[in-house]
Every structure is written in structure tokens, then in C-alpha cells.
């Protein structure tokens, strides 16, 4: 009985110290998690903001005004005459013999 008590008296402080160390480690980890969470939240906000800015750029670049400007710049001109093929009409090339 005496030996059990003496073993317990020896082990209990060690267990207590172990638990204390574990608690400090856990708390430290949790504190780091908080920092990671903050970084992630900030990254999400930055990405959302960049995404919004990019959406705006895409909308600007694909607007009809911009498309028309670019089309004119590369030499496109408004169509004046149109040739339409309706059912029953065939392209000339279709009737040529190979």
C-alpha cells in the first residue's frame, strides 16, 4: 500500500506537468489557428475584391461600345449587303462536279 502511494506521489506530478505542457501546446495551436483564420479571412476578402474588380474589367471589355471600337480599329465595317440562302437554294459549289 505504501509503495503504491509513493509511486502515485512520484507519477502524479509528472502527469500534471505533462497535462500542463499539453494544454500549453493546444492553446498555442489554437492561438495559431486564430491567426491562420484571420489570414484566410483577409485572403478571402482580397480575392472577393479582386474578383469584383475583374468582373468589372470583363464587363467593360465585352461591352458593345468596346467591341465596336476594337472591331473598327482592326478594319471591320458595318455590312451593307447581305446574301441569304433559303431552303431549296444551294451554294454554287455544291453543284460542281469533282
Amino acid at each position, binding site marked *: 500500500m505504501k509503495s503504491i502511494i509513493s509511486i502515485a506521489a512520484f507519477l502524479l506530478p509528472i502527469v500534471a506537468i505533462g497535462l500542463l505542457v499539453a494544454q500549453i501546446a493546444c492553446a498555442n495551436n489554437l492561438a495559431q489557428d486564430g491567426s491562420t483564420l484571420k489570414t484566410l479571412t483577409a485572403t478571402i476578402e482580397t480575392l472577393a475584391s479582386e474578383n469584383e474588380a475583374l468582373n468589372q474589367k470583363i464587363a467593360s471589355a465585352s461591352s*458593345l461600345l468596346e467591341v465596336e471600337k476594337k472591331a473598327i480599329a482592326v478594319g471591320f465595317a458595318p455590312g451593307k449587303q447581305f446574301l441569304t440562302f433559303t431552303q431549296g437554294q444551294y451554294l454554287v459549289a455544291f453543284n460542281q462536279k469533282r
Partner: protein
Amino acid sequence: MTRIWMVFGIFILLYIGIVSRLLYWQVWASSRLKTQAAGQHFFRLPLPPKRGSIISSDNYPLVMNQQAYLLFAEPKNILDIDGFAKRVGESIGKDAASISGVLNQPGRVWVPIEHKVEKEIVERLKSLQEKGLGFEEEPKRYYPEASMAAHLLGFVGLDQNGMDRGYFGLEGFYDRELRGKEGSLEIEKDVAGNPILIGQTFRVEPQDGRDLILWIDRSVQAIAEKRLKEGVEKYGAKEGSVVIMDPKTGGILGMASFPSYDPRSYAISEKERYINPTVAGSYEPGSAFKVIIMGAGIDAGVVTAKTEMDETGPVEVGGYTIRTWNNQYHGKITMTKVLEYSSNVGMVFVGKKLGREKLLSAIKNFGFGKPTNIDLEDESSPTIRPNKEWYEIDLSTASFGQGIAVTPIQMVRAVGALANGGFLMEPKVVKAIQDKNGKITPIPPKKLRQVVSKKTAEEVTEMMVASVDNGEAKWAKPQGYRIAGKTGTAQIPVSGHYDEKKTIASFVGFAPSDDPKFVMLVTLRETTSSQWGSETAAPLFFNIAKDLFLYYGISPR
């Protein structure tokens, strides 16, 4: 004994007093006290929601949000107020004296300097590292297509509390949907008003506004606006409008008015420009209205396309003489010819055949006299007089579209009923509403009632096709297409009489007539090159129609 009763009475009175006071504090004044207590214990920071976008049917944004910021200052942290005001004022283009004036006011701890400052300017200001200068996100509206569809979209301004609010058009009508719901952040504060680090915080996330997906097709809208502007300039018109609707759904594909305004700088435009003339502006439709009365006549069985009338000369009605527009008379003509010649005398014949009750009931049945319930804030409708106030001459002139006021949207919807087999549709600009999770709630097309039978609609369509092919505007018609339409030229009432020189020229029609893809109304006010619809509004209609045929890939026969 008396003293005991007196003491007892005093205790009772005291008890009643205490209970009354408690009742007052805990019941009557409780909400006010709660608010006061919350104000003493908590900061409340509003978290503004993001306003929804407005997207065309081909999935391009017509209105979206742009990153912008509220610029504010905390005077107690500023070392040199005049220098601060000068540097900030230069960057935002604001007078330094007005900024320093506000900053120097005693007791100011937080001063808003400028709303909705664009990101580039904010980046430049941040680089100055001014102490006491702060930024709060405050998105503003961005219009990728510039001033396109301004009347339709409306604009966003500030309400009396300084909060964003939509005015006119879709921004006004769907303000609650677009606006979303404000969130809040409440932080516990100490007696000095500073936040408590380990105090309680309550965060209610804002709910962003919902997006509107329109029936409007960006390309159709661009075509309508471009051609209308050209038409107004070419024909020297004071104003003009174009409405293009899908007759089968009532969906508005394009809606343009000229002159217009720029929603980005609405404040510098005349306020009258904000109102959309296609839904709020009334006009006398003139001969274009003949197709409605003819439809009513055929549906009531009083005439058919082949019914003949004798157009020998002017007719006398109630002491007034009614002539044809060119004072030419063709003898015996069919109802189809009445439309082709646009004969007022022929329409008086149809009006008389219909009679007062049927004629007025048909006008109302086609939706005139009441708003169409289009989803735009500015809609208003001219009223129709009570039946007993219609005299014989009024009925006769109404049969050819004079003396009756309509809005362009009412007119295009009524003709749309002839295009779709007889159904009066409720016109809609918004096709669906989408929330931020991507859930789409469609707004289904709404058939209100059948105003004429399918057979009548087909018969009137053929008469309208003949009217285009053989009428005054046949020279402008694109070859190979079957287009149903009718010109209109109405004199403008000025001070109790009609001004012969001032007219509203219009053309209403749909195409291809066998399976209509669109119904369109073009109106031009006070044209100077010619007063006739056949020489102004009709060619403009056909120009737009040609572009639409190409866009929709509709080939000629």
C-alpha cells in the same frame, strides 16, 4: 382607529403609485429604454448589402457594382487641418476651404468628406498616408454599356437618410429586390465610448440584393437606340421612341427613347428626362389605331375583310366633316382597302357598325385606359372618359385614332394581341430574379385575356400585311419579308385645337407575320422633314426590322 385606516390608505396609495410607475417603465417606456440602454452599451455599425446587378437576356450586365469608398476624417487625429484639406481636396477635386470648414467645426469626431470615391483615387490617397483619413467600402453603380437603356434602368440616388435608393425604371420598381437587407455589427463599449476588447459583439450578416435577369436583349437594345438616334436626326424630330416586344410572352426585348440621359451623371440632366416616355408619355395614335377598331369590328361580326363600303366623299358626323387624310375617295372599297388607303371615312363606317357600347368596350378590352402593369416605376395611363360622355363625333374620331390618348406600351401590347392569336399579355421587362446563391426564380409570362379570336387575329394580320405591301409606306419595306403593320399620323392637340403642322408619326407592326418574332412601335414627335408616318416612322421601323432579321437569322422568302 381612524389613524390606522389613514396609514393603511397611505400604504395602498404608495403601493398603487409604485405599481403604476413600474408598469410605466417596464411596459410603456420599455422599448425606448431598451434602445437608450443599447445606445449606451453598444456601438452599432451598419453593414451595407451589395446591390444586385441587372443582366440582359444574353447574360451581359447592364448595371453592376463598382468598388468605391466613403472618405471620412477624424479631426482629433489630424495635425494640420488646412494642409490635410488641401491635399485631400486636390485628390478628389473638392474645394479645400469647404473640407477644412467642416473639419474645424467644434465637437466633430467623425466627418464624411466624399461618398463613392473610386478605387484609383483611394489608392492614391492611401499612398499619402494622411493621419485621420479613413475609408469605408461603399460600392457605386457601374454601367458597362454607358447610357444604354437609361430610361429602362433608372438610377440609384440617395434617400433622405443618405442611403442608396433606386429611382425610376427598374431600379425604382425593383428597389427592394435589388437593395438587399442591411446587416449590423454591435460592439460593447466602455464608459469612455471605447470598444471593450473582450466585450460582446453581435454580428448580423447583410443579405446582398438579388440580380434581375431581363427580357431585354443587349444587341436588340443597341440596334433600337442607334437607329432611333439616326431617325430622329434624319427626320428632324423633337422626340422619338421605339418599343420592341415578344408578342408570345410579353417580354420587352428593347425599349429606347430619345432624348435620353446618362444614369452615371443623372443629377446634371433635366428632371423631365428621367421619366420613360414609352410607359408614361401619352399620345394620340392616329391611323395606327385603325387596326384595333378593325379587329374589334371583325371579332364582333359587324364587318369582314371583304365587307364593302362606299367611300364617295367626306362624311358628316354631329355637325363636323370627316375627310380622308389626302381628301381622295375611292368609291366602293373593301375593309382591307380601308386599311391600305388608311381611310378615316371607312373607319367611321366600322365605328358606326360597332356602335357606342361595343366600340368603347373593345377599346377597354384591348387594355387602353388602364396601366399595363409593366414592371417599371414610371408607368401612368391616360384615362378613358365614362361612356355617357362620349358623343357621336368622339366615337367617330376614336375609330381612326384621334381624340383618344394611349401610351406606346399600351399600343404595342394591343397590337401584340393581334400578332399572337388574340391574347392580351402583361408586358414584362424582368424575366427572372436570381439570388446570391444562384437560385433563379422565373417570372412566367402572363396572359390576361383573349381579346379577339384566333381567326380574327389572323384576318387582321393579313389586312395589315396588305396595308404594308400596298400602302403608302411600301417603298421602304424590306423585300421578301411578310411584315404586318400600319402607319399613323396624329395631329397634336394644342390649346383646345389640333395643330396641323405638328404631328406624331408612328408605325406599329410585327414580323414575320406568320410566326412573329417581335412586335414593334416607332413614334416620332414633330418631325420636320415630313409630317407623315409613312415617310418617317415607317422607314425607321423597316430599318430596325432589317437589323433584327439579320440578328435573329430570319431569311427572306
